[in-house]
């Protein structure tokens, strides 16, 4: 009885998978498919992947990846999907295409055009990389194209990430890995939709792991998203363990502890971190006579910032090594920040490297060596951690460049153990504006502004503007501020990083004044008011990323012209979103010929979940509407 039942299931499975398999083979193009004019679920899609499947298996020491793709082109905007390119290493990796055919419907008949060698190209990029490219022939609106490519890689155990989701819809996607008994992999899926996994033992003590997803919608960029790939459905395999009984036992990353231990044991990481001889004399000189902790950390941090320049290469391991970087005065991220860590340790601090994944690299969600691409330094103090990144010359203790501010990093201690470090800034970065101005009855407003920027706001200001010539900066400033005329511009603390950026200037504004029918209408923020809501979409799928918590504060003092009196003022307002994500406070009052306004708006959370989008959008709209409400003055 039970035998029969099992047999039935097996038969059913075989039958089922057979029919499935047939649907997703190359060379089966139907007239109905060719006639289809638009995607039934997404009519605006310029093309669709009818299917995309991948098989990965191992032959001796070679990793073989076979990908088959069938694409339907609906519109001209989808033509780019008729070109494909595969990046590969020159050393030990080859890519070959086969079965590349374009199908068209001509007078009711299916016409096949094969890709010949003239449409295949090998473009050598540099010493290390090359790209294999194809351009499919005879493609027009309505065409179906299909091809298969095979990547043979001698880089054993290193699998390419598989993406289920693209900027066009995908009807079916399958990822199939055949794993020999002696290998163990870590598997990570990302995105908002998850593939179904079925695991089937096969011959030779292998296991076939198959992931399937159907009807995957297109994924597209949205504003205030740090990196769309964080939300794209994908899977990655990373080798965790090789275990051939009696022969080899080698473990790789399986959890964060193991990952960091592996990284720490690299010569180009831990080995470089432990070198000290090259700087000892210089650092001794630098800190002799300094007493307080802050002074010493500052001195060492500044020393590294000024004496070794970043060559823009991101990685957590050294390239030329710390010694050479120190001598040449240039290095990659690891050379600079591992050197910094080593110097801080040498000076007696409990300093450790922190592995980071930059915003461009995506969020480090799962333990893997490739989850990180960057390293910074941390000093443990009784008051908490101080994070440092010496690649950015305007950075400060705990004020890191924006590229670093990406969820969590991983701190590695001397013994190889590790812990999570929250990289999201907790303190508000502020923009504080104090202004007082006089409204003249001839329509010209003259006044003074004093503007302060702190923390991240100051950092990004310095990055952008310090090297800009003053003339150019002022022209841009005038232009951005509704064409005001600026004079007496003074800026302080450009290079005094411990103090806020401070700008003061006098302005003349003749545009933010409206005199209608003997009355004067004026928005108290003049040219400083935001007029357009940055959130335009009706709905949103992904979290809103502000980078860091922000406070905008305005203190405004207005003097009204002689012969006029206040007819009406906007009403004071105090609003907040649920969970205190954002707050806005607007207080206005007048005495005599003076009007005083104080506005504070806070975004308290760097990253706001998508659930709050509608609330946030409304909050911004109320804030903007309020800012643009007019004071009305009448003749007396």
């Amino acid at each position: 009885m039970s035998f029969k039942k099992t047999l039935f299931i097996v038969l059913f499975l075989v039958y089922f998978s057979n029919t499935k398999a047939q649907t997703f083979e190359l060379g089966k193009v139907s007239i109905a498919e060719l006639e289809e004019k638009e995607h039934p679920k997404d009519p605006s899609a310029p093309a669709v992947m009818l299917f995309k499947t991948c098989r990965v298996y191992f032959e001796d020491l070679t990793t073989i990846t076979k990908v088959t793709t069938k694409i339907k082109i609906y519109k001209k905007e989808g033509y780019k999907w008729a070109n494909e390119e595969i990046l590969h290493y020159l050393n030990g990796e080859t890519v070959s295409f086969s079965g590349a055919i374009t199908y068209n419907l001509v007078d009711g008949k299916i016409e096949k055009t094969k890709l010949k060698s003239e449409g295949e190209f090998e473009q050598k990029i540099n010493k290390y990389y090359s790209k294999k490219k194809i351009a499919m022939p005879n493609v027009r609106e309505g065409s179906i194209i299909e091809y298969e490519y095979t990547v043979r890689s001698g880089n054993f155990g290193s699998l390419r990430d598989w993406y289920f989701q693209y900027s066009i819809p995908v009807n079916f996607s399958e990822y199939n890995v055949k794993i020999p008994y002696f290998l163990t992999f870590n598997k990570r899926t990302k995105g908002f939709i998850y593939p179904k996994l079925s695991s089937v033992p096969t011959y030779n003590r292998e296991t076939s792991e198959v992931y399937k997803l159907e009807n995957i919608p297109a994924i597209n960029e949205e504003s205030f998203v740090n990196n769309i790939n964080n939300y794209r459905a994908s899977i990655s395999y990373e080798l965790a363990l090789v275990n051939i009984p009696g022969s080899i036992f080698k473990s790789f990353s399986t959890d964060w502890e193991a990952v960091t231990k592996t990284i720490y044991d690299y010569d180009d990481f831990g080995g470089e971190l432990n070198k000290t001889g090259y700087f000892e004399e210089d650092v001794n000189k630098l800190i002799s006579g300094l007493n307080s902790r802050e002074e010493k950390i500052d001195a060492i941090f500044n020393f590294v910032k000024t004496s070794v320049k970043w060559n823009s290469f991101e990685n957590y391991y050294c390239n030329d090594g710390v010694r050479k970087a120190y001598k040449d005065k240039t290095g990659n991220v690891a050379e600079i920040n591992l050197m910094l860590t080593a110097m801080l340790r040498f000076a007696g601090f409990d300093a450790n490297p922190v592995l980071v994944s930059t915003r461009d690299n995506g969020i480090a969600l799962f333990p893997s060596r490739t989850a990180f691409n960057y390293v910074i330094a941390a000093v443990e103090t009784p008051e908490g951690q101080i994070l440092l990144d010496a690649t950015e010359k305007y950075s400060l203790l705990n004020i890191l460049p924006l590229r670093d501010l990406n969820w969590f990093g991983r701190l590695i201690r001397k013994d190889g153990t590790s812990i999570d470090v929250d990289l999201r800034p907790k303190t508000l970065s502020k923009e504080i504006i104090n202004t007082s101005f006089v409204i003249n009855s001839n329509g010209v407003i003259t006044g003074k502004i004093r503007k302060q920027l702190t923390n991240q706001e100051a950092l990004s200001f310095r990055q952008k503007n310090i090297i800009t010539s003053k003339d150019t900066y002022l022209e841009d400033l005038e232009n951005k501020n509704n064409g005001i005329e600026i004079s007496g511009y003074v800026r302080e603390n450009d290079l005094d990083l411990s103090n806020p950026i401070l700008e003061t200037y006098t302005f003349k504004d003749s545009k933010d004044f409206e005199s209608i029918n003997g009355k004067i209408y004026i928005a108290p923020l003049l040219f400083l008011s935001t007029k357009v809501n940055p959130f335009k979409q009706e709905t949103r799928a992904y979290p809103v990323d502000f980078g860091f918590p922000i406070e905008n504060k305005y203190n405004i003092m207005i003097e009204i012209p002689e012969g006029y009196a206040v007819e009406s003022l906007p009403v004071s307002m105090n609003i907040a979103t649920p969970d205190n994500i954002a707050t806005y406070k607007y207080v206005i009052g007048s005495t005599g010929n003076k009007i005083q306004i104080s506005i504070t708006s806070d975004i308290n959370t760097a990253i706001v979940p998508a659930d709050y989008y509608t609330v946030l959008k409304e909050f911004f709209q109320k804030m903007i509407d309020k800012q643009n409400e007019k004071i009305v003055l009448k003749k007396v």
Partner: protein
Amino acid sequence: MQFKFTCFLLLFSSTLLFAQKSEYNTISIADSLKENANAIVRLNQIDITISSQRNMNIMTKRVVTVLNEKGIGEIEATEYYSKTSSVKNIEASVFDGLGIEIKKIKRKDFKDQSAVSGSTLFSDDRIIYLDYTPTQYPFTIIYESEVESSNTAFIPQWYPLSDYFVSIEKSILNVNYPDNLGFKKMESNFSNFKINKTIDSSTQLSYTATNITAQKEEDYSPVFNTIFPKVMMGLENFHLENVDGTAKTWSGFGQWYSEKILSGTTELSEETKLKMKALVGDEKDPIKKAKLIYNYVQQKSRYVNISIGIGGWKPMLAADVDRLGYGDCKALTNYTKALLNAVDVPSYNTILYGSSRKRNIEPDFVSMQGNHMILSIPNGDNYIWLECTSQDTPFGYQGTFTDDRDVLIMKPDGGEIVRTKIYQDKDNTQISKGKFSLSQTGDFLGKIIIVSEGSQYNQKAAIENFQPTDKEAHYKKYWDNINNLKIDKITFTNDKENISFTENAEISAVNYGSISGNKIMFVVNGYNQITGNVKRIRNRKNPFEIQRGYADGDEIEISLPSGFSIEFLPSNFELKTKFGEYKTEIIKKDATNLVYKRTMFLKKGLYSSKEYDEYRLFIEQISRNDNAKIILTKNI
């Protein structure tokens, strides 16, 4: 509408001498050269030796003092090479501010890469460049290179001043050539600059330019090479990728191009020829025939840039394009020509500079120029121009990528310089007819039909193919004066026959009018505001140019909420200046119905730097009047 290009490769080149270091310390630089400069070219010496029709050697010695990060691009330690040219020497050394050498850079330290850019699928061309991370500012770099080429068709143009924000201490050009190759040159824009022609003989030409101060980049400036000095050079008897050529007159050059480069590239199979004959059927009119063929090409082909052999100058064979269905601008142009041939319609390959900033083929200097190719068909005394890389452009439409400029038509019996179609200011129209109503709570509800023609068609037609999210984003930006905008419905009519694009939109917005007390205030001109500022520029130096004019007309019916009376209506307004004309008027039909009429006409033109401020004020007045408001009071 987007035309893709990168067609011909412009071969740039650059040299070698000995270095006397101390003269390059940064202390001795004159203050006048530091003003507005991110970098100072201390010496740029280019020695070009043409030893025969098939050999050119270019030696460059370039000494640049870089003052800050923005000046790094001025190092220009870059050479291109291909199968017919080679970089024989390339090296650099770096000196600190005092003129002390801090680094030597050998050839192996330069990056050597494929020179493929974004839209190119394949190219043989390579690039060697220096990727230097400065360790301090200022620093001085001495760069030397030697390049040898058999292509004498491209002698580099000499720009003593090559960019904005860089000053020149000394720039030297020396050219040596045999007297039998017909060396020629053309100087432009020398006035106002210190340039000495030191030798000008039958075998030698030399210039020295000294002390050119850094130029600021100013908005609305004409194209760089039309305002700053340059020398074009060429040979009457040149060599290009194994073919000898002649360029005495445009006629002779065209003949050579047709015979040596184009001949044999337009063969087609009998089958294809018959197909084309069947396609045009009994049609006799050559233009109507051409229209049918052009439509066929647009349906069948796509743009893919593949640049192989003859420096990317020889088009791919028409038979190959016929089979593959893709090619670059030359391939697609030539293919279209071949198809037209098959139905006895003559047409000519046409070389030009493709760009929305108009640039001419220099008519008085016969040489290899241009970066794009289109097809011209004689039509009486005029021509019809076909952009063959686009699948959407209407027959004969030039948009803003190839309009109004001198181009070179390659007729079989010789080349000829012709002006492409000029879209007259008055024909670049956008006519809007619509209405909107305002509710008692200030909400906006409107419908509008916008018809765009002439060069304005170009900007609009692309919207039709946008993805829904991009479409929404476009309109929210286009009408960013309307907060809380909702696009309720939008449809398009693209009349390619008459080259007219219609947008039919229904939109709404809450709180369009702002309410204070018992009043509602709202902007009359809801649909077509000029909101952008023209930047105030202190001491403008360059002339300014309006590249294309236009004419907008709006007629909008406005219905007011009942229960309100008009407190204030903006008065009619009219402006007439040399830059154009602007007029608005409001007609009161009854108590709640108004008609708003607006016309705006801008002329194209080249104006002196002095007139810039006048233009700025012209636009400012328009922008102010576009923001005029109506005030309504609630009836009590």
